[in-house]
């Protein structure tokens, strides 16, 4: 090997090395550029629909939007206000947040960015309704978030318990009197008739609307929202009397005044120790969860029995868009965050909600064949065909609290309905959102 050959080989080696280095540098630059393009957004949520659904939802979103990464901050539903409150007061934290549609969202609207036109167009194209995310349930006003599922109240019943009590599972009670008679039979076999928990917000959200439908019209409910319907109004007093009668008649478990409906009250029903439970159609403690615990064949769903059979809304369903997702006003990643909000309303997410979480979607383009087969679900799909406003979400925090505490004391015989009414009126007058 000559000197010239050796020098030539060395030059070739150096050239090769230089090319390799340049290639590596280019790859690193490209990778850096790609990494820079990925935006991470933080989503504060209470995981409606369960962990599995949320894992699949995030995976589907990230697959459809490779430039956005989602970081979840999941908080239990009953601890949500104490976590969200400081974020809002300090105007910092997540990019996307969840709130219940209605007053809860309206109260927090300063924390949300109004939905831009392209997101609203998507909502119109995809959703049956999204008014619960708009001020005053009016889509012509500013909207702050998009819903994804349909939510509302039904009463579930355990067919096996009804049968054991000598009742016909195919014909559950339809009126208050029939319910009273059924409860007498259920109690005779040593079981609780109606699983109930009166702590927390559940009485306001899950029980109050079902009695209110017997006495209020939709106009009355809108007046409630604006603080224009006092609790001293005979209609409102009748609602309280209806609630009081549930515990006065002895339908509920003795522990009702000191437990919450979720999880304690629902546990009584899920363990097969109660005939009825008034809960919700989506998210948790729904037909899917009860079916898994008791067997689909044993779970039925019905409207709450009526107190006033010919009331205009007696045969309606207290429905509300489930929780809504909106972009925080302080987010520096609004574009990516709105992509997530749009995805929540998409057909793809709707299918996931139904198939994975057993939820009922608000999306009008979802394939009905993708829904699970369940008798309770079929009954629910019939019930929700005649919706009305959900009066529970129209109550202020003060009213919801006074409703639960008052009912606890009424159930224990320590408070009259008149005094309860006075407390509710005081709570209404103390509500900042209704002043």
């Amino acid at each position, binding site marked *: 090997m000559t000197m010239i050959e050796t020098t030539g080989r060395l030059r070739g080696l150096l050239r090769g090395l230089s090319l390799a280095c340049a290639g590596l540098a280019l790859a690193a630059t490209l990778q850096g550029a790609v990494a820079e393009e990925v935006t991470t957004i933080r989503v504060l949520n209470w995981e409606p629909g369960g962990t599995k659904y949320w894992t699949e939802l995030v995976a589907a979103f990230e697959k459809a939007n490779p430039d956005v990464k989602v970081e979840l901050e999941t908080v239990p539903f009953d601890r949500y206000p104490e976590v969200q*409150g400081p974020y809002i007061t300090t105007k910092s934290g997540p990019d996307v947040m969840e709130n219940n549609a209605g007053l809860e969202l309206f109260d927090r609207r300063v924390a949300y960015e109004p939905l831009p036109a392209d997101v609203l167009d998507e909502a119109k194209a995809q959703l049956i309704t999204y008014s619960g995310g708009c001020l005053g349930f009016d889509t012509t006003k500013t909207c702050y978030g998009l819903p994804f599922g349909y939510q509302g109240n039904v009463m579930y019943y355990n067919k096996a318990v009804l049968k054991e009590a000598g009742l016909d599972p195919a014909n559950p009670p339809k009126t208050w009197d029939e319910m009273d008679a059924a409860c007498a039979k259920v109690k005779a076999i040593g079981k609780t008739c109606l699983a109930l928990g*009166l*702590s927390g917000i559940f009485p306001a959200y899950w029980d109050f609307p079902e009695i209110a439908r017997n006495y209020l019209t939709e106009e009355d409910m809108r007046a409630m929202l604006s603080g224009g319907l006092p609790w001293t109004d005979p209609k409102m007093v009748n609602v309280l009397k209806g609630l009081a009668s549930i515990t006065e008649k002895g339908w509920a478990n*003795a522990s009702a005044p*000191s437990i919450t409906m979720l999880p304690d009250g629902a546990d009584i029903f899920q363990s097969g120790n109660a005939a009825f439970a008034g809960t919700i159609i989506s998210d948790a403690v729904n037909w899917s969860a009860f079916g898994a615990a008791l067997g689909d064949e044993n779970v039925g769903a019905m409207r709450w029995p009526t107190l006033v059979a010919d009331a205009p809304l007696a045969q309606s369903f207290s429905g509300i868009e489930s929780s809504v997702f909106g972009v925080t006003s302080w987010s520096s990643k609004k574009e990516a965050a709105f992509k997530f909000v749009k995805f929540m309303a998409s057909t793809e997410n709707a299918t996931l909600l139904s198939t994975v979480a057993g939820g009922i979607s608000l999306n009008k383009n979802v394939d009905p064949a993708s829904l699970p087969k369940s008798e309770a679900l079929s009954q629910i799909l019939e019930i929700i065909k005649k919706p009305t406003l959900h009066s529970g979400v129209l109550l202020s925090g003060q009213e*919801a609290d006074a409703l639960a*505490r008052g009912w606890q004391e009424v159930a*224990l015989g*320590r408070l009259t309905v008149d005094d309860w009414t006075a407390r509710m009126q005081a709570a209404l007058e103390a509500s*900042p959102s209704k002043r």
Partner: protein
Amino acid sequence: MVAASPAAAPPRVRKTSRKRPLMRRELLIGILFVLPGLALAILFKLVPLIRGFVLSLYETRGFEDPTFAGLANYRRMIADPAVADSFRNALVAFATLPVWIVLPLVLAFLIFQRSPGWTIFRAAFFLPYMIAPIVVGIMFRQILAPEGPLNALLTAVGLAPLAIEWLNGPTSALLSLTAVALWSFFGLGVLTYLSGLATLSEEVLEAARLDGAGFWRMLVSIVIPLLKPVIGYWTVLCTSGILIWMFPLIYALTRGGPGSATVLPEYLVFTTTFQFLDRGTGAAIGMALFVFVALVSALVVKRMYAEGKAKAR
């Protein structure tokens, strides 16, 4: 005398000038040691307190920007029966303080005397303190339910009249809450008292034994007088425990119910601020609670300090 004075003065001046830099250095070192603690106290105690007071002077509507309202929140707070109820509940809970002080002391002295099974009891008593209060609350919500295991046990052993609805009665719910808190907290008291007992002179205890003093006589006449500073310390801890550390238990056990039977002021601050979104009134209640706890604690601390000084002399 007059002539001697100037001659004697210079050494004194030199001595003082030598001492001054030393004192300054000591002062500087002292300040440096105190400074981090002082900074933390200002940052995390004083500043939030002042901010809380300022917020209590503002009216807040939901999450909208607050507006200055003077003493309106305090007037609203005074007129609100729920606030009065919560402070009344706090006083009832506080009335159980003697139990919080005496029970761990008796148990600690039993362990100290090597009573049968003392090693097991020492560990068992401390165990509840290791369980998170929120878990304790959930656990006892099941145990104290009307059809729960406690009532089942009472009924099974022929004590059915005692099987009451623990969490449903206005007084029984508050006392149940306090009892659960005591169950959760007393292990720390036993450990605190055991630390104090370990410092007692064995000769004094032995002498009392030889004089024929029994368990109670020794406890009352020897242990309590000698342990007064430790008892004072434990009393302050319990006072704050009862008045401002019950939140997780209330939250998990009763949510303040039935009605407002177990709402203590700290829980009311939480519901007013986060549930009712009324931060101004929440801050006003918080300030009232601060004053209440400060007054009660000051009395206890003053007593403890007096005992400490008396012992030092």
